[in-house]
């Protein structure tokens, strides 16, 4: 197979056959000899002091393994950033469903009865449930002021623009929590003993995050902890940091019982106890000139982090940097804060803060355009960032970005202009109103700022004597196609058949730390390391005089065999080195926030039934520039899936909170889009190869989460002539607004 054929070709998914035949083994499908089952007893209250833990009658408690905080061999915190979240609440609880006690038993039915028979008695303290209450310091529940983290991004002098500007437009936008709802719930199996150390197998995105957490929890040397990823049934960020908690709990029970322990959440537990997308509140103040130039943006962005810091600081960072969008605005200030509430910690979720702040900006720009007297399209076109201009952090865009061209393509595919006119005319009569709206945005790939430099990710390759190549990385296959694209990239680099490359299952005992599988970094950052590690194999063979510059697959195979015979093995590795032209000032939040951005324009067509108040997305067009597309089917699959999650975020997915606890923690009443709900999602890629990525690819995974919610709410405004500033937009909200309008008319 020649080189040009592999990149951009829809080769079959590596683990496709196992998945379609039911042979793929997820954690709950594995049943080790002698396994017992684990369960978590949780806090019934949002905040308080644990006064007593009562073991109810009728349960043979002597048969149970019980783990309390004092049974923890090492440190009682989930090692992450600030290390403030305990594995088991020790005396105080800070959110509903906080883990208090662990139980294990060979009979999972009796275990469930036992879990329900434990009563945790809490003397309640006054809780904080909303961003406003937290900011007002109604109670101080975390640190000195409830603020986990704050950022300030400044460009130009935003305060100098208000007085002279032709238009100053203000708005406030809010978004609710969102549940990941991966179809496979969280779960781990652990085996642990002081002699052998700790091994866990589980559903996860980041084996080395779990590894780091277990090393601290058990106070063990790094080589005594091993973490193996099992087939993972969806992540979306929900299995970034949370599995460290599940794995630790299962391992504590295994350590104490001396038996392997399986802990798999049922859906209800997963929904009420695990992380969700951060709720947000954004205030935007924009100044514009009469000729439609954006003069200033002052953005106050706040996210609700829940009870512990976990990843909120980094979520806030990404949301902050994306808040001013892909526009060339000379004066920008973004102030942002992540605050504490007595809800379970909010965590990583595809987009990681960016969907929240982009929702606010893209709604607001429609409003500003209206005030200035321009169409949403024209106003944006006059302000799109171009090559040589700078983002809010002062990053000079060196690539040839063409947002106008991306928007043209999206409008063409969606027939936007004709629909704008036609719907406006047709909406004058009838009860079903139609609208079309869009959003333009960017998404940075990889860790923010110096993050990749600190991660120092490593990928290994090993060639076998029969000329096969193994790729060794901790980057997980969670459905997005890691196994497939890594094999394509490595095969392309070496001119091998796709079938001759195998991506090894992530196991910290066997693979180097290529960093977490998050932040749209797997293809662009880790994929590049796969490419260089593969080329390293070739270089060793050519240096050894075993391989000519140009070679056939047979020659490669022979060279590998000879090399392995002479040296025992043939391995290479590649470590990330930050390109010299990336400069980031972490103290002032200035500089090159990301190595590369994907750019996009999404167009949504909606209908709103003014009798039932139901809004539906009828058509969706997603056009983006993501560098080179490695695998067209997988890439389109990422966009389509992300858009569907975005449609859910915009219209259906409402987390109903009741005193800090998710009250609708069931698939019955937390609604995600079904096959009957999704519109045609038409995906189009424009390709502009990025030299820093493998074969020119950038990141892609999070991008599609950013655009749908603002595009859809912009379309609803077009349909109804009523502006909505909160996602999800439920039928109840539409009803209230239309009734208000009706009363006013």
């Amino acid at each position: 197979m020649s080189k040009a054929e592999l990149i951009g070709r829809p080769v079959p998914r590596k683990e496709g056959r196992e998945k379609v035949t039911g042979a793929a083994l997820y954690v709950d499908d594995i049943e080790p000899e002698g396994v017992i089952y684990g369960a978590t007893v949780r806090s019934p209250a949002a905040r308080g002091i644990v006064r007593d833990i009562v073991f109810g009658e009728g349960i043979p408690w002597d048969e149970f393994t019980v783990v309390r905080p004092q049974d923890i061999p090492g440190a009682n915190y989930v090692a992450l950033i600030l290390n403030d979240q305990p594995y088991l609440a020790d005396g105080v609880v800070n959110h509903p469903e906080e883990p208090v006690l662990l139980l294990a038993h060979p009979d999972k039915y009796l275990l469930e009865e036992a879990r329900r028979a434990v009563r945790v008695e809490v003397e309640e303290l006054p809780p904080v449930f909303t961003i406003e209450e937290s900011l007002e310091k109604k109670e101080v529940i975390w640190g000195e002021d409830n603020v986990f983290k704050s950022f300030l991004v400044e460009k130009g002098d935003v305060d100098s623009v208000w007085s002279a500007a032709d238009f100053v437009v203000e708005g406030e936008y809010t978004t609710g929590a969102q549940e990941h709802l991966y179809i496979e719930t969280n779960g781990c199996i652990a085996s642990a003993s002081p002699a052998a150390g700790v091994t866990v197998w589980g559903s996860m995105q980041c084996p080395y995050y779990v590894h780091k957490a277990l090393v601290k929890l058990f106070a063990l040397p790094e080589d005594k902890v091993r973490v193996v990823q099992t087939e993972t049934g969806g992540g979306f960020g929900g299995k970034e940091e949370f599995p460290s908690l599940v794995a630790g709990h299962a391992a504590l029970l295994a350590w104490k019982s001396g038996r392997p322990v399986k802990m798999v959440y049922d859906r209800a537990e997963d929904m009420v106890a695990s992380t969700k997308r951060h709720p947000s509140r954004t205030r935007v103040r924009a100044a514009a000139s009469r000729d439609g130039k954006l003069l200033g943006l002052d953005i106050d962005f706040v996210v609700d982090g829940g009870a512990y810091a976990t990843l909120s600081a980094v979520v806030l960072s990404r949301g902050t940097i994306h808040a001013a969008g892909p526009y060339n605005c000379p004066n920008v200030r973004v102030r942002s804060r992540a605050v504490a509430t007595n809800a379970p910690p909010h965590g990583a979720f595809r987009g990681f803060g960016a969907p929240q702040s982009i929702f606010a900006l893209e709604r607001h720009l429609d409003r500003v355009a209206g005030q200035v007297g321009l169409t949403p399209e024209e106003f944006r076109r006059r302000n799109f960032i171009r090559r040589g201009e700078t983002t809010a952090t002062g990053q000079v865009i060196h690539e040839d970005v063409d947002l106008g061209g991306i928007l043209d393509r999206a409008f063409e595919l969606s027939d936007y202009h004709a629909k704008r006119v036609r719907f406006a005319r047709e909406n004058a009569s009838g009860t079903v109103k139609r609208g079309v709206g869009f959003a333009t945005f960017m998404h940075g790939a990889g860790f923010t700022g110096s993050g990749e430099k600190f991660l120092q990710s490593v990928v290994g390759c090993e060639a076998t004597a029969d000329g096969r190549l193994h790729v060794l990385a901790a980057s997980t296959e969670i459905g997005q196609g890691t196994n497939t694209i890594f094999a394509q990239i490595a095969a392309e680099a070496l001119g091998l058949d796709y079938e001759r490359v195998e991506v090894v299952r992530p196991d910290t005992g066997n693979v180097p730390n290529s960093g977490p599988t998050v932040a749209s970094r797997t293809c662009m950052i880790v994929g590049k390391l796969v490419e260089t590690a593969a080329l390293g194999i070739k270089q060793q063979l050519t240096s050894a005089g075993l391989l000519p510059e140009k070679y056939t697959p047979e020659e490669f195979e022979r060279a590998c065999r000879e090399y392995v015979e002479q040296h025992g093995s043939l391995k290479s590795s590649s470590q990330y080195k930050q390109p010299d032209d990336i400069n980031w000032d972490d103290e002032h939040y200035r500089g090159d926030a990301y190595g590369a951005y994907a750019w996009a324009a999404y167009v949504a067509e909606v209908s709103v039934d003014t009798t039932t108040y139901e809004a539906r997305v009828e058509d969706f067009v997603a056009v983006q520039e993501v560098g080179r597309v490695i695998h067209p089917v997988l890439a389109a699959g990422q966009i389509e899936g992300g858009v569907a999650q975005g449609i859910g975020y915009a219209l259906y997915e409402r987390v109903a909170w009741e005193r800090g606890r998710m009250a609708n923690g069931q698939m019955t009443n937390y609604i995600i889009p079904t096959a009957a709900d999704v519109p045609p999602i038409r995906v189009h890629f424009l390709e502009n190869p990025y030299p820093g990525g493998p074969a020119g690819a950038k990141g892609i995974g999070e991008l599609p989460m950013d655009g749908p919610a603002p595009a859809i709410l912009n379309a609803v405004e077009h349909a109804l002539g009523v502006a909505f500033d909160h996602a999800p937009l439920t039928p109840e909200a539409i009803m209230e607004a239309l009734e208000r309008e009706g009363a006013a008319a």
Partner: protein
Amino acid sequence: MPEERSKIKVNCTVNGEPVALAAYPLERLLDALRRELRLTGTKEGCGEGECGACSVMLDGRLVNSCLVPAAQVEGSVIRTIEGVAEGGRLHAVQQAFIETGGAQCGICTPGMVLAAVALLEQQPHPGEDDIRRALAGNLCRCTGYVKIFESVLKAVDGGR
């Protein structure tokens, strides 16, 4: 642990083989299939009949095995995902799912494949609306369903 004697025997046919399925009297078919027969391709997604990950064919009809008491399948014919490929040869739906991107993380895939197979057995030439309706009881969080619809349509075109 509940003792072995508290289980009942349920005689049924699973993937073409007659079996005496040992199950606790109130147990879900899902659990009995997974534990007793190690047919772990049938997944639990929600346990309340919403997501379809536990779909199996029961006497030719697609059901959520988390809602079926095992005791109720006496004399029935059950087909799970493990019984869809015959003699190692993939069903056209399975082949299309691999080629067209119908499977991402794979956890909904067994149920989704069975739902598609059930549809094609009832209606060999469905249109996209038929497909949407037939798959509406099987939730997928990865694909946005687009590639799943394409996969089913491809299986129709390239039928066996």
